[in-house]
């Protein structure tokens, strides 16, 4: 088990989904609400619980483009709606990411 430096109380952790996050606000991925076989391509590209995601722009059709570890990944908004995220508290930004229980 890893140390959790996140001290701020995460507000409704599983309620917040990626499409609700304004552009350029970095959030932490908590959970992927997809069956394993559909989640695997995301996992392979580093979209994992605990990682920092930042929606950087939206495509002409309104689908999100996210930045993760310096890579840009385009998603459909249906997929983005399956990404449960939480806002980073002031101390959480510098902290070690938490190993979240998935599924």
């Amino acid at each position: 088990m890893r140390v959790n430096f996140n001290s701020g109380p995460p507000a409704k952790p599983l309620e917040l989904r990626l499409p609700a996050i304004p552009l350029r606000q970095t959030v932490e991925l908590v959970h992927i609400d997809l069956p394993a076989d559909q989640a695997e391509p995301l996992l392979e590209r580093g979209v994992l619980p605990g990682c920092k995601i930042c929606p950087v722009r939206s495509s002409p059709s309104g689908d999100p483009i996210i930045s993760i570890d310096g890579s840009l990944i385009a998603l459909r908004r249906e997929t983005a709606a399956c990404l449960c995220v939480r806002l980073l508290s002031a101390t959480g930004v510098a902290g070690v990411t938490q190993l979240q229980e998935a599924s």
Partner: protein
Amino acid sequence: MGQAHCEGEGPESGVALLDADGAPLVALIGPPNSGKTTLFNRLTGLRQKVANYPGVTVEKHVGRVEVDGDRVIDLVDLPGVHGFSARSLDEKVTRDVLEGRMPGLRAPDALVLIVDSTRLESQLMLVEPVLELDLPTLLVLNMSDELDARGGRVDDDVLARRLGVRIARTDARDGKGVEGVRAFLGGVQRREAAPSGRVVTNVPRGTPLPMMDAFTQRRHRVREVVREAGFVPPGPSAASERLDSICLHRVWGPLVFFAVVVLVFQSIFTWATPLIDGVDALVSSSGEWVSAALPDSWFRSLLIDGVWAGVGSVVVFLPQILILFLFLGILEDSGYMARAAVIADRMMCRVGLQGRAFLPLLSGYACAVPAILAARTVDDERDRLATIFVTPFMTCSARLPVYALLIAAFIPERQLLGPVLGQRAAVLLGLYGLGIVAAVGTAFLLKRTLLKAKPSSFLMELPPYRLPSLRSIGLRLLDRSRVFLRRAGTIIFAVAIVLWTLTQFPRVDGGPPPIDDSALGRSGQLIEPLIEPLGFDWRIGVGLVTSLAAREVIVGTLGTIYGVEDATDTSLGLQDALRQDLTLGAAIGLLVFFVFALQCMSTVAVMRRETAGWKWPVLQFSYMLLLAYVGAFVAVRVF
């Protein structure tokens, strides 16, 4: 004795040439867009071969690298993958080669894993499964110049120590650091003992954890390693962001997309014209020179009226095809293609295809065969079948010679939108558009009937914009020219000879008969009633039959037929001859026919292989033929 040794497979299977002289085999792996193919081209140059993996049709690129003067290493460039779930066929091929289970290819003796160092952390997710193979491995940090320029850094020595691999920094695009890779290759020794039981998987061995947890743990290990190595991720690429703010803009994005498409098609016609004229002049002057050098005989007739006219009329379209591939190459290497896929995704989604189908469909503009193979990246089986089914509606480059000939012959050049869009380019665009409409309608129909399914997902990595490397694109163009000319030199050459022979019999007074009475004319007239409603005469009919081999063969066929027919009056070019025989309506009908019809045996063959049966190819061939017939029937009455 050990020389012929090859894991489980005799040297006669498939690509035995690789194993002939006992050179060590090194596999080049990495995620897509990491610069893998650029490095491969840097190392092997022209000493490379493209073939298919046995059984499957994923392209296999193998090349030879000379190290230390006389030693050689065989290098195989594996398809780019993000992981080893073997979900797509590319991933399956990569896994099989790494595990030494690919028939005809021995297990690699060493590995070169190349990653884009500007995205080091996520790209290193591949490192763990690769290292588990326990082979000598070189980790190549590519695009390291860009990492430095954008203020990122990493300590190679620490990274190398922590991972237990050698590391080389490169900038494959301009060849910087490639010596480091060469030095590693120079030290690779052939392994004599067959390593057994190699497994490469996404989920680490011995972890009974659910997949997501296994990934998360690996991710934590990678993060620790890069942190220890002092990895500072690069700042955002300002240039890429600026370009994206235009190319993915709500208004400008689709406009740029449309402008790029128009630019490509306009240039195919305007830029290619002087080149085509040049090749044309070369073909006809060489024909005249050969004709003058030979005595008047049947052999001269065969050579000039058959071969020169047939093969020559196709070869002149080489510049156009190269320009198309040049643009495709630039779009892909610059990173714009991924943006185009994102812009197209919603449209694709609406007709029931997924965004990943965009790349196969776009490759379909070059050739349906690799496009159908590229459809393997579409992971949902129903989506893949739908993609394969509509791909032949994309205007492949083999249609281009047919379109170019008929448009040049029947459509006068006139400005439509000032200097931006000419009438001929507009007609060409219209034909491309008609193909898209047919594809969309067909996909729509399929997804509501035979291939009903719920919508799937779409993920697209957007690589930073990069200047395409001339060398890399040049090599690809060379490759395409070879394929095109080989086809002209074999299929079209053979068809030209057979057709010429058929025009020579039955002999009349010891000489060739009038073409209408020849064996070719007679058999053409047999099918004439079938195509008469479309306004085509028997010459076009013969062309339609021969073009079943490959679409552009009709141009060569007509070249041969009219070449023989007009042996006395050589000034009459193919275009003039066509103008005498076809009405404008029939010409447009012929164009429409070629938009729809599946006149390509290679496509049918590859479909049969990819769909594992005759059901889909037969259905598709009949469906497209019906569309073509009805389309031409309507066109000839409208125009």
